[in-house]
């Protein structure tokens, strides 16, 4: 399946995540379109410029909400082992991230409004690097909390070489 020598991480995210991403995409598109609609409605002279932009935002927003979430569901995978956390995310651009347990500094779970509605959570694992954080969205709340606790435990048992 993968051509580059890396195996696919073991677990998929929850199916509900598709719904979550769809809702989030629609919300973003609505807000953007709303912001553009105000000047469109207020100033008639600006309409020839804002009109096409508004149409484009609407079209991209709908496409984004229709296609990207399922695409993401296919790509998003994650795995934690005794040595490392491994995740694959993205859609058009795929990203594989690995962080060894010995370098982990914090393990967090977070839940946005849509995630709370759907019983989902995001697991975030950070290392000493400002750009090494691994985010695993679309986990079941129970799974996320269990993983976070397990990782914290393992992390404390593993002697780290700190930075």
């Amino acid at each position, binding site marked *: 399946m993968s051509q580059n020598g890396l195996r696919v991480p073991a677990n998929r995210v929850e199916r509900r995540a598709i719904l979550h991403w769809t809702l989030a995409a629609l919300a973003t598109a609505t807000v953007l379109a709303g912001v553009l609609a105000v000047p469109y409605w207020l100033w008639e002279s600006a309409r020839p410029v804002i009109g096409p932009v508004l149409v484009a935002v609407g079209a991209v927003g709908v496409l984004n909400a229709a296609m990207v979430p399922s695409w993401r569901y296919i790509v998003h995978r994650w795995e934690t082992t005794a040595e*490392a956390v491994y995740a694959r995310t993205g859609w058009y651009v*795929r990203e*594989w991230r690995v962080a060894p347990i010995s370098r982990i500094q914090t393990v967090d779970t977070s839940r946005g409004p849509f995630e709370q509605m759907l019983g989902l959570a995001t697991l975030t694992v950070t290392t*000493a690097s400002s750009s090494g954080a691994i985010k695993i969205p679309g986990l079941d709340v129970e799974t996320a909390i269990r993983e976070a606790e397990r990782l914290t435990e393992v992390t404390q048992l593993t002697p*780290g070489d*700190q930075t």
Partner: protein
Amino acid sequence: MSASPPEAGVQDAIVDGAEPPDATADVPWLRLDAKMIWVDAVRALLSMAPAAIAIVVVGVEPTSGTILPVAVLAVVGVVGAANDAMRWVKTRYRVTDEYVERRTGLLVRKYRSIRRDRIRSVDAQGKFRHRLARLRKVTVGAGQHGVSGGALTLDAVSRTAAEQLRHELLNHAEPAVAGTVAGRTSSTAGAGHVLARLRWSWIAYNIVNVWAYVMAAGLLWGAYWLAVLFGLDPAGWVTGLADWEELGWGWTIAVGLVVVGVIGVAGLAANFVSESWNFRLVRVPTENGTALRTVQGLLRTREVNRDENRLRGVQISEPLLWRWMRMADTTVITTGLSIFSTSSTILPRGPLGVARRVAAAVLDREGDSPFDAALPRHPVAALRRRLLWATLIAAGATGLVAWLARTIGPVPESLWWLAAAVLLPVLLTLAVVSYRALGHAVSGEYVVTRSGVSARATAALRRSAVSGVVLRQSLLQRRLGLMTVTVTTAAGYGRYAVPDADAHSAVQFANEAAQGMLDPFLEAR
């Protein structure tokens, strides 16, 4: 240990609060040096001197145009001096066994403390006026992110006190020789192994710069103001120098640019000389290892110490426009020092050869430097991807200009193809430059990455310092057989990327760079 992670711990390394954390310690609080008050007062007076001479001695009639700047200077000077006096009254500091503490404020008391084991640099600066009064401004750095300058500044203490502070805080094994060393530089730079000294030929690398024009603008404005103050007419003088009407616009502008450029270059040269005077990069022994120390400056000396236990690598960056003269900037990759602070720069801008030699010496890899490692060219597909993007961006920008020209109105129709004619070749050239900059290798215990358009940056990072791996591949990259490898680390920029490596060898390279971190996730073959 992970329970109290070091980088997250940086936040609690610096404590602001209402209570000193070490309230029990029986160490007396110290004041700043009182000399700083009158030093700044004298400076305020001196800055008004030209105006005073002009008006009192030469007897120039004061006008509102000449008085206003003087008045502004006077107000700024008085406020500054008053501020200094207040700071002297308010500030106390002390060094206890565990903390460096500073207390400021009369009514609202503020404490700031840094745990001594978190201290990563102690920087002693002396501006000219400070040097005359034997004062130093001490900045203590604790690897904080987002706090510019340093975690704790003492402005200013006596030179002996500064020496003592540095000695105490950085655990120097060498004897404190403050006060016994004669000469311009404050300290003990003589001890230790000298890795680099200033060469005057480096001046050439530091004067060709766009900043020359900014510098010239400042200098000319100052000169103009001074001349007007003394009742001269510089504008008239310049007008009378040549028959500008006859020269025409083109020549006038050309002459102006050249003259201003020459003034700016002279200014930059003077600036470089005063900043880098007697520059030395020295490896000095400390109690728990070694430190890289730079000492430099004529009127204003600056000394920075970098703990080598925190050194993770070196980066050499070559700015695009000056690639032909092999100009290079050399910085160290360390934890705790912000890459945006000048403290990470260990050499003045200079020739690439020196940068490479010093980098090898700093990494202790002379003769087998990671910077000499062969960096094979990336696959041609990487060039194709760049050319494609360049074309797409040029086309997009041209389309946008054309559309705007049509909808908004009074823009000539020809503008859009002009945009295309200029943009496309420039972007295509940059695409080639960017492709040629790509490179990566594993050299001994170092991983070497090279990329960048406006500045080609080559970084050698210790493999043991790699704290994570990010592999990135878009669908286009996948079709082209490319993959972007990024290693993350706690030091320097935090991430060092190898864009568009060959997809088949990328994972193997990443695994090698990260010392086998990917082993459990490789496909069984």
